[in-house]
């Protein structure tokens, strides 16, 4: 593996990556465990993290074999 310059520094200069290049798994870390949550509110639906995590994990594992994801910003 050759490293010309730290990738992070280049990333920092470029600004945000196009969202289609963000790895789904990193995105889900943030979208399912982060973000504003207003509990006890009149929400109709909100992701149940633990429930989702379990099934997403199985799904991503099976999908990864087909190589349709994992095209995130890492090499």
């Amino acid at each position, binding site marked *: 593996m050759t490293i010309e310059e*730290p990738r992070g520094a280049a990333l920092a200069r470029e600004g945000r990556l196009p969202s289609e290049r963000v790895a789904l*798994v990193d995105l889900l870390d943030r979208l399912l465990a982060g973000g504003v*949550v207003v509990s006890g509110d009149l929400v109709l*639906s909100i992701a149940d993290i633990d429930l*989702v995590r379990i099934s*997403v994990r199985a799904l991503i594992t099976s999908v990864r074999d087909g190589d349709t994801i994992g095209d995130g910003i890492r090499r």
Partner: protein
Amino acid sequence: MNDTGTYLYAVTRGAGRNRAESLAGVGGTPVRTITHAGLVAYVSTVPLDQFGSQPLQRSMEDLDWLGDTARAHHAVVEAVAEGSPTAPVRLVTVYTDDDQVRNLLSRRRDDFVEVLSRITDRQEWGVKVYMDLAGAPPVEERAEGGGPGAAYLRRRQASLRGREEAWREAASRAEQIHDVLSSFATASHRHRAQDPELSGRKELMILNGAYLVDLSRAEEFARLAEGLRGEGVDIELTGPWAPYSFAELAEPDEPGVADDD
């Protein structure tokens, strides 16, 4: 009974540099804004046959649906965050109608303002740290008496000890790295480490950190993170992200709850 709900993506303070009309939301729905109590909420009207709690139980397990929805949500948040400090809302937060969102904005106004001022001119960076535990040096075997059974037990104990030490070493490296990055950042948060099946790497992920960093110090932070690589440790930097990991509202009646861990 209504057959639509109001899907909430993000909340900002300021007004209209971000053109909601040009954005496509979840399920291809148009994005619009609700301005109330000095805050702006970015929302879509969504059909409840897709976004009600019953249908969601199924569709959240459909990876194509989840992927599309997550990316659409993210795209809206990113577009909004480019224009002004933005508090992203968790995926699939759906209110009964716009009035409920207005109610939220006025009720939690101060909490939103507090979050928004905390993240102003700052970005979230992700740092994932991997360590190759298989590469840990084996524990030396001492020659001792006893039959093959005893020798097996010794080997087994030695291997368990080696493993335990490797885990301890990994945990302490993770702490060190997190400490270095946290002391540079304004705030930090540790996400659960990703399983090797999810990360796509055979090494163990020992740290899945998120760091809130001043915009002006982004390059410096990236260099710092990259510089922590080495001695069997690899580092992946992701971002900059909208401040998903730092958008926690203070608990009602409990001001000043830290987001940091």
